[in-house]
């Protein structure tokens, strides 16, 4: 039999098809945009931070963190080009500093992203309950709203119903446009004057410096995931870099602008107003120019922003857990797919969510401060720790083998970033009572560092146990989908689940 095609195609159908499946810079930016959640940060994190910490310099804190991340990204992206592993931080540490620390880092990362995801339940419950009462005339406790959202997230995860990328893209763009629009509206309000206080660089040398930076890292959480898309990106070298730098810059500038505007417009009563009005402060300030509809629109998009962030972090945690399960770093059952989806990993995160909601509801703890803000700040500290360790990993990696990277990318920028990050880590822990709004050595001041330390130590210990009892799994740590330990069939191992291990 002969093919009816009498001419040889000029372009490879295979290459063309594979290229079409890949995503570009804009697609990467939108993919991580939901976890960044601009409106949640501006309306939720900034206003709650003002109320709890009473620190004026949130704008300069965000700006400083943005600049620091741009410098950190230089070495980080250089590494991402060489290690294409969707697990990012964990893989980089494994292939540079060592596998035991990498497992510890992986468990810290899981804790960090869970903190963000769980914080969303507090935010949506605290904001959603009064709105539900206003809209429907029925009062419901915050945990009812949180439970409804938990059910939505659980259902999407169990049935692997991906919220359309287009839907998420529209929501992210809409909330970003809203932040800009409302900020401009506030600026154009008669009598508005910009205050230089939020941007005063003195704030970075003041007693609240660590607080500001922790809030800054909370604001930028999720951006580091751009490197996870390196494997699936079209022209990865350019597009992942573009997506990372562009997102940090654009998002950072929007946050700085909006935070400055909020502080300037709220005047001398800014801390009291932030405490009394919460996220409504941003919408109320804009309503002066735009009218009351802007408050309702803001509420709707704030809720969708939180829901989108909740879903985005749930998916991130599921995939991370799946990856670790597949390599054998976590129980193998998490590395199995059902119908092509990481259902076991999704169920595990869902279970954590219901436990946390139940504990807070039973204990009567304030969901806005003690879950949303504390959880988000704990997550911000986690991201700070992960970024710091990764920055050290970048130096170690290129110190062993410079390859063809420039001195700036492999040594100078990572060293600057690492030194500054280490100082920031010290300041953050020293200022954590102010960050959490509690007395020193109480509550989250002790619990958060302890949780991360325990996760790190347990992870290291587990890696050492694996080295002893399952060396083939230990050897595959950090190698991702291509690791021998994740191999499927029997040339040297056993097959378990949708993953392979030799």
């Amino acid at each position, binding site marked *: 039999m002969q093919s009816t095609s009498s001419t040889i195609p000029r372009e490879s159908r295979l290459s063309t098809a594979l290229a079409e499946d890949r995503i570009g810079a804009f697609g990467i930016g939108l993919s991580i945009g939901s976890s960044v959640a601009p409106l949640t940060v501006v309306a939720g994190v900034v206003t709650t931070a003002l109320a709890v910490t009473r620190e004026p310099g949130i704008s300069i804190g965000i700006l400083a963190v943005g600049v620091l991340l741009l410098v950190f990204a230089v070495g980080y992206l250089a590494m991402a080009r060489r290690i294409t592993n969707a697990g990012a931080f964990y893989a980089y540490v494994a292939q540079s500093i060592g596998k035991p620390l990498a497992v510890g880092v992986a468990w810290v990362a899981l804790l960090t992203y869970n903190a963000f995801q769980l914080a969303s339940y507090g935010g949506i419950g605290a904001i959603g309950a009064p709105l539900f009462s206003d809209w429907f005339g029925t009062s419901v406790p915050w945990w009812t709203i949180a439970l409804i959202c938990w059910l939505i997230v659980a259902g999407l995860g169990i049935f692997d119903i991906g919220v359309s990328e287009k839907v998420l893209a529209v929501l992210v763009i809409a909330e970003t446009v809203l932040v800009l629009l409302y900020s401009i509206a506030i600026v154009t309000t008669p009598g508005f004057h910009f205050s230089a206080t939020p941007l005063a660089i003195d704030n970075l040398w003041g007693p609240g410096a660590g607080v500001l930076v922790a809030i800054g890292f909370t604001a930028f959480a999720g951006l580091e995931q751009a490197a996870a898309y390196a494997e699936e990106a079209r022209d990865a070298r350019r597009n992942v870099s573009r997506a990372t730098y562009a997102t940090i810059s654009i998002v950072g500038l929007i946050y700085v602008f909006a935070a400055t505007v909020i502080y300037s417009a709220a005047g001398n009563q800014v801390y009291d107003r932030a405490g009394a009005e919460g996220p409504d402060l941003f919408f109320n300030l804009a309503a002066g120019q735009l009218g009351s509809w802007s408050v309702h629109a803001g509420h709707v998009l704030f809720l969708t922003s939180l829901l989108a962030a909740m879903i985005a972090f749930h998916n991130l945690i599921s995939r991370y857990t799946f990856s670790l399960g597949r390599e054998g770093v976590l129980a193998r059952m998490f590395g199995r797919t059902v119908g*092509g989806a990481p259902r076991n990993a999704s169920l595990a995160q869902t279970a954590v969510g219901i436990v946390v909601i139940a504990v807070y509801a039973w204990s009567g703890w304030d969901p806005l401060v003690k879950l949303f803000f504390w959880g988000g700040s704990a997550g911000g500290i986690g991201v700070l720790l992960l970024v710091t360790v990764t920055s050290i990993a970048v130096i170690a990696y290129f110190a062993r083998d410079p390859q063809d990277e420039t001195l700036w990318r492999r040594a100078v920028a990572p060293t600057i970033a690492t030194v500054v990050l280490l100082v920031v880590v010290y300041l953050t822990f020293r200022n954590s009572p102010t960050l959490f709004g509690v007395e020193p050595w109480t509550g989250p001041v002790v619990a958060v560092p302890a949780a991360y330390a325990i996760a790190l130590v347990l992870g290291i210990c587990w890696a050492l146990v694996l080295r002893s009892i399952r060396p083939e799994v230990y050897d595959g740590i950090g190698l991702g989908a291509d690791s021998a330990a994740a191999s499927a069939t029997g*040339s040297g191992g*056993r097959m378990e689940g949708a*993953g392979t291990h030799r």
Partner: protein
Amino acid sequence: MDTSLPLADEFWLSAHNRPDGYSLLKDRALGIGLGTALLAELLWVDHIRLSDGLLFLTGAPWPADDALFELLVLMYEEEQLLPRHGPAGQKVIDWISFLAGDGPDRARSLLEGTLQGGRYAPGREIGSSYAGGRIIHRGRLSRRNPPLAIPHQRRSLLGRGAWVHVPAHINDAGWPSARITTTLQRGEPLDAHHLTLAALYIVTGLDRDTLNPLTSGERAMLQDQLIYLPAVLGELIDHAGSVMSKQVMTG
């Protein structure tokens, strides 16, 4: 039930073993399984060989099977586009990823043919024979080779839904996995064909539905037997697992 069905056909049937005949797997996972099965069929009859992640064409006489013929045509076309001074082989993960996608020349199209809009278009025509839609046309439709699948229009709240393929006889869909489970339950070894099929179930996550009658001891027996899967097929399954994992990680 014909027990000598090609590997990809048996995987397709197993993946549609539910009362309504719809797929148990998401499209991408189904595509990965079918694409890997088709490559395994080519490996089995030495039309291609696999080494260190690269596929090489062997120049063996062309297969009579239309789906394999169609796939080999494409592979020969792609081989001629390889850079002169680069490696002679083609990356197997690229082929699995390609075959797993939607559209003509992909695994599902080679097996199911193409359903266009509301009309059924049975694949591309090559000479006087049909290519594409192997499970529909079975080479040449006859009483001895009835179709394994038929087109079916899904019901939708908004009216008529999309066209899909479902097994022609739903009982037939359970036979491939039943042969595996009953063999293991008798404590007997599986042959290479069924070992490969079981491996495909596991790597795509289909085992949760197809191998659930097995006890933990019988699962362990399967694990032991998988070591004896021919090395080249084992390597192919490994790569399918990588593609599957990457698909999960990036959504």
